[in-house]
C-alpha cells in the first residue's frame, strides 16, 4: 500500500510499504478515508521529536472504514465509519478509568524510552515516534487500530467526513484545554495560536460560556478564519503589544484562562530573542523547546488564573518564569489529549451543528501529494490551515 513516510529532517515521501496486520484480538484494520496533517507533525519534520526513523509512517488525525476486526472487538463491525483517536488507550487501567487516556499504562509498546526521558510512560500515539510506541501513522491506505473498542468511535450518520475527521485530535485537544483549563461563565480566555487546535480551544471556551475569547497568531489569514467562522476576537502579535492588549481587554486583570496552543517551535516578534532561542534549541543541549508563547501566557495570566498547555513540548526549556507562576498563584496544567473522554460528546455536538470543524480543511488532496501538502502546511502557503489526505481518491471531499 501507499503511505507518507518521514525520511529525515524536512523530508517526507510517498512510499510503498507492506499492508498493516492485526497482532492482537482487540485490533482492527481501518481503510483510511481522510487523514489530516497536524501542527505537531512539523516538530517531527523539523527534527525536534526524538526516536524517529527513516521510513516511519506518519499522521495521527484520521477517519476511515472498518475492513477487518479481531475476535475480541465488540463495538465495531466491518463497514462501520469510524473516527480514531490519535491517542491509543486500553480503556481499563486506572488512568483510563480516571479519564486520563493519554496517560494509559498499557498502550505504549516501548515504555522504556519515555520512562528514561520523562520518568513514566504516557500512552501510545499513532505515527508519533518510537518513544510513543512506534505505531504506524494514518497517512496510509490502511492502519491497524489497537484496543479498537476504546480507541475508535462510530461516526453518527448526520456528520460528514470533513467535519468528523477533526474529532480525532484537534477538536478534543481544544476541548480539553477549555475543560481542564476550567473555563467558566464570564471568563476572559486568551489562546496562543490560531491553528486548528487553537481555534478548537477558542470555540470550546465560547461554548463553555467565556465572555471574551481572544486568539493570537502572526498569520492574518488564520486570525481571519477564526474571526469569521468562530466569532472570536483576534490579535496579531507582530503588530501590537500583546500583554497590554490582553490587560486592556480584561479590564486590567489579565485573562482568567490562558491556553497555549503553539508548542516547542513558538515565535516572538523580538528578533534577538527569537534567534537566541533558536540557537539554543539547535544545540539540543541548552534547551530542546522554544517557549516564547508559554512564557508570555504565564506573564499575561491574571493572578490566581490558569495556564493550560496544549502545544507539544518534548524536553527542557530555558528561562521558565517560575517566579511569576508562584507569586501570582497560577495553576498550570497540560496533557497530550484525553480524546476518548470527549470524542462521543463532540460527535453529538457536531451532529447537532453546535461544533464547527470543516472549515479547517483548507487543502484536501490525494495521498500521493503528501510532500506538497506538508510544504503548504509548513510554510503557510496558499492560506493553508490543514492539508487533509484522501488515500482512496482524488482529494475531492464532500461537505454537507
Amino acid at each position, binding site marked *: 500500500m501507499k503511505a507518507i513516510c518521514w525520511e529525515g529532517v524536512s523530508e517526507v515521501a510517498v512510499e510503498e510499504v*507492506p499492508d498493516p496486520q492485526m497482532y492482537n484480538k482487540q485490533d482492527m484494520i481501518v481503510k483510511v478515508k481522510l487523514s489530516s496533517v497536524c501542527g505537531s507533525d512539523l516538530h517531527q519534520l523539523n527534527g525536534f521529536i526524538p526516536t524517529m526513523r527513516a521510513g516511519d509512517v506518519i499522521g495521527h488525525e484520521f477517519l476511515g472504514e472498518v475492513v477487518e476486526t479481531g475476535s475480541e472487538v465488540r463495538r465495531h463491525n466491518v463497514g462501520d465509519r469510524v473516527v480514531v483517536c490519535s491517542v491509543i488507550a486500553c480503556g*481499563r*487501567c*486506572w488512568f483510563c478509568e480516571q479519564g486520563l487516556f493519554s496517560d494509559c499504562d*498499557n498502550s505504549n509498546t516501548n515504555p*522504556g524510552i519515555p*520512562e528514561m526521558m520523562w520518568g513514566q510512560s504516557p500512552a501510545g500515539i499513532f505515527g508519533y515516534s518510537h518513544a510513543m510506541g512506534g505505531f504506524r501513522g494514518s497517512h496510509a491506505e490502511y492502519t*491497524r487500530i*489497537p484496543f479498537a473498542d476504546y480507541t475508535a468511535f462510530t461516526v453518527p450518520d448526520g456528520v460528514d467526513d470533513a467535519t468528523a475527521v477533526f474529532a480525532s485530535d484537534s477538536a478534543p485537544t481544544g476541548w480539553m484545554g477549555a475543560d481542564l483549563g476550567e473555563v467558566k461563565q464570564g471568563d476572559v480566555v486568551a489562546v496562543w495560536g490560531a491553528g486548528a487546535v487553537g481555534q478548537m480551544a477558542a470555540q470550546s471556551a465560547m461554548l463553555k460560556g467565556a465572555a471574551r475569547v481572544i486568539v493570537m497568531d502572526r498569520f492574518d489569514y488564520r486570525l481571519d478564519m477564526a474571526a469569521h467562522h468562530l466569532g472570536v476576537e483576534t490579535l496579531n502579535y507582530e503588530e501590537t503589544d500583546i500583554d497590554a492588549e490582553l490587560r486592556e481587554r480584561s479590564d486590567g486583570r489579565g485573562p482568567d484562562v490562558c491556553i497555549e496552543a503553539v508548542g516547542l517551535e513558538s515565535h516572538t516578534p523580538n528578533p534577538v530573542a527569537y534567534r537566541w532561542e533558536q540557537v539554543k534549541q539547535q544545540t539540543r543541549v541548552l534547551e530542546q523547546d522554544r517557549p516564547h508563547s508559554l512564557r508570555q501566557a504565564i506573564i499575561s495570566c491574571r493572578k490566581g488564573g490558569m495556564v493550560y498547555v496544549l502545544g507539544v513540548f518534548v524536553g527542557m526549556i530555558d528561562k521558565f518564569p517560575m517566579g511569576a507562576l508562584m507569586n501570582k498563584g497560577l495553576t498550570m496544567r497540560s496533557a497530550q489529549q484525553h480524546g476518548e473522554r470527549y470524542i462521543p460528546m463532540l460527535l453529538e455536538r457536531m451532529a447537532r451543528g453546535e461544533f464547527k470543524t470543516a472549515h479547517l480543511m483548507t487543502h484536501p488532496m490525494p495521498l500521493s501529494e503528501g510532500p506538497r501538502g506538508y510544504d503548504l502546511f509548513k510554510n503557510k502557503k496558499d492560506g493553508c490551515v490543514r492539508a487533509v489526505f484522501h488515500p482512496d481518491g482524488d482529494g475531492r471531499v464532500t461537505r454537507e
Partner: protein
Amino acid sequence: MGVIGAAVAGVVVNRIMSARNRNLWPMATIAQDRRHARWHVVTINKSPEEVAPGGRLPEPLAKLGDEVEVQVNRAVGDRGTALAARLRHEPTGVAATAARVAGTDPRQRVRVALRESKQLIETGEILQPEKVSTVKRTLTGLPVDFAVSRARGEGRL
C-alpha cells in the same frame, strides 16, 4: 518446579491474606536494603484475588520461577493491587552494564514480566508492537534501533 510453584503460591496467598486481614501498608517493598536487589512494582487495576487467583501468579511472572521473590498486596489507597518482584541475585558493576547492553540483564526480564502481567490482567492480552517494519536501516537510526530493541525491558520500573 512444582514444589517451587507451590511454595511461591503459598507465599503469595499469605501476602494477600495478611495484607487484607491487617490492612497492612506500607508493605516491605519500600523498606530498601542495600544487601538486596530493589523491588520492581506495578499497580494493577484489579483486586489481589484477580491478580493471583488461588495464589497462582500471572504467567509472565511465573515463568521467572525462583529467579525472583514476589509480593502481591493491596495497592496503597486501595487502588487495586501492587504486584512486586525482585531478583534474588542481581548483577552488579561492569557485568551489570554489559548485560544491560547485551539485553541479557535479568532486571529487563523482570520489567517485561511485570508489564506483561499487568496488561494481561487489565486488558486480557499483551499489546504487540508493529512486527512488519516500514523503517530503513540507516547509520543515524542505529541508536534508535538499539533503544527500541531494549524498550520493553528498560525504564524506571
